[in-house]
């Protein structure tokens, strides 16, 4: 059902046969090879693949940080040439400025218009469970809290497109599951389009409307799996048979079980 609506809705992100080739000292490396896909507005898409399959490169092409060496990347109907205005990005590490407080780090996304965004920043910190931590410095935060700050910062300018590059990959398993649920709660309140890169099958199934599976390098599209789990999703969902079936399906696609 979700997949059907995704096809019908106008695509916010459209990759047309995009490739990217890196030049290294030892020669050329084809990271992404002729990948095509569409992401609809307000859709949550997870890109799943083994480490080093080019999924981060693909995300950077969506962001406009890296240009395709072949094919075309379009966002909101326009070819991407540089990072777009209403774009939010969360990286694997929180990338906080260690000399700024929690609030200051969120306001870093205000591009110098801190006063205009102050109230919104406070509201986002509350939404991400960081009320009371505004004046803390990054060295005083745990990894999960730092990543919450990073999420609040990405949401500050109300992004139309939120790109997340293995944001919880460095966290321990428990914190990671907690952050997954938190992300869905935040997304429930501030609906936006999310492209979420991960190498965790359970994370992709739990979060996404649709999972795009990439092959080993050079990264191509191996499969597209719609996730027909009901929303709102809670931790309890992980114990349901359907969750297990979807995990198994993805494991088969990725060639982990045979």
């Amino acid at each position: 059902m979700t997949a059907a609506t995704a096809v019908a809705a106008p695509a916010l992100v459209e990759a047309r046969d995009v490739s990217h080739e890196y030049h290294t000292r030892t020669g050329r490396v084809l990271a992404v090879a002729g990948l095509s896909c569409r992401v609809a507005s307000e859709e949550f898409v997870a890109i799943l693949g083994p480490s080093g399959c080019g999924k981060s490169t693909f995300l950077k092409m969506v962001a406009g940080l890296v240009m395709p060496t072949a094919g075309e990347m379009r966002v909101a109907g326009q070819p991407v040439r540089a990072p777009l205005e209403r774009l939010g990005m969360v990286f694997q590490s929180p990338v906080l400025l260690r000399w700024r407080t929690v609030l200051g780090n969120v306001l870093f996304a205000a591009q110098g218009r801190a006063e205009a965004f102050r109230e919104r920043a406070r509201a986002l910190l509350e939404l991400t469970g960081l009320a009371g931590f505004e004046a803390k410095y990054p060295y005083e935060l745990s990894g999960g809290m730092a990543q919450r700050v990073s999420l609040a910062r990405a949401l500050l300018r109300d992004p139309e497109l939120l790109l997340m590059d293995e944001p919880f990959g460095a966290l321990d398993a428990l914190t990671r599951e907690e952050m997954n649920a938190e992300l869905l709660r935040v997304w429930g309140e501030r609906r936006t389009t999310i492209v979420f890169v991960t190498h965790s099958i359970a994370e992709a199934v739990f979060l996404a409307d649709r999972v795009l599976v990439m092959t080993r390098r050079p990264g191509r599209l191996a499969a597209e799996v719609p996730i027909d789990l009901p929303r709102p999703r809670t931790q309890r969902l992980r114990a349901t048979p359907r969750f297990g079936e979807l995990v198994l399906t993805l494991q088969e696609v990725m060639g982990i079980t045979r």
Partner: protein
Amino acid sequence: MLPRRTIRSTGPLARIRSPRPINVTDQTHGARSERPIILGRADNLLARIGVPLATIAGLVAAWQVVVAVFPIPAFILPGPVAVWRTAAAFGANWLPHLLATMQIALAGFALAAIVGVALAVIIVHSRTLSRVLTPVIVILQIVPKIAFAPLFLVWFGLGPVPIVVITFLVAFFPMVINTAVGLAEVEPELLDLTRVLRLSAWRVLWTVRFPGALPHIFSGLKVASTLAVVGAIIGEFVGSNRGLGYLILIANNNLNTPLALAAISMVSLFGLALYGAIVLIEAVSMPWRPGSLAPEATP
């Protein structure tokens, strides 16, 4: 029976073995647990300041003992007591010399700091200008500055200008190198973030590169401050009619060794004070470092 020795709870070793718990949650920037060196928490203030002072006092005492025991004439090596008496007797005569040297050293140091940071910004932002400037900067550092000193007198005339120029040349190199390293050292993901946020190069310089480079800039300032004092003395040796460097030279010529040593002590005290001032400013200006002395931030 021999007294039992306890080495567990006191002394500097105890502090090394049982450090404060270090916060290891900062996954972004690795273990950055540097703390201000001179001043820390009040509980070991005594050890931190008392031990170095006791060491210096011990060395001075040993010096006095050597002079008292062996028959060394005062024009070769006077004792600290004799040096102190000479210094005290010189009284208000110190003032013009001390002020002259302080002015030269501070002017040269300020020039080195400003020009050093400016050069570092240029080097980090333009590959071409970096290729143009770097060899010039390195050659200026390699050339013995004292060899230039007589030339500067010819070029700039008598007065403070050639001495300030020498001081600047002696002190600016560590400023450029340290600042450039600090400015260039930005995580790739942070640079990606600044591009996603569409920040201008100026904004990135002011909000990301400069604050990130502050620890390196302070390292440069500390080294440059000590070199500026050395530079000022070198300059005064060559072409001056006042200042502590000039005084040392005159005292040496008159075989007035106690006065020369008193002037050298004065130079050292001034250098120490300048260095200490920078360490203090460093300790209060980076509240984001664990263990900082600065008050809590207000968001």
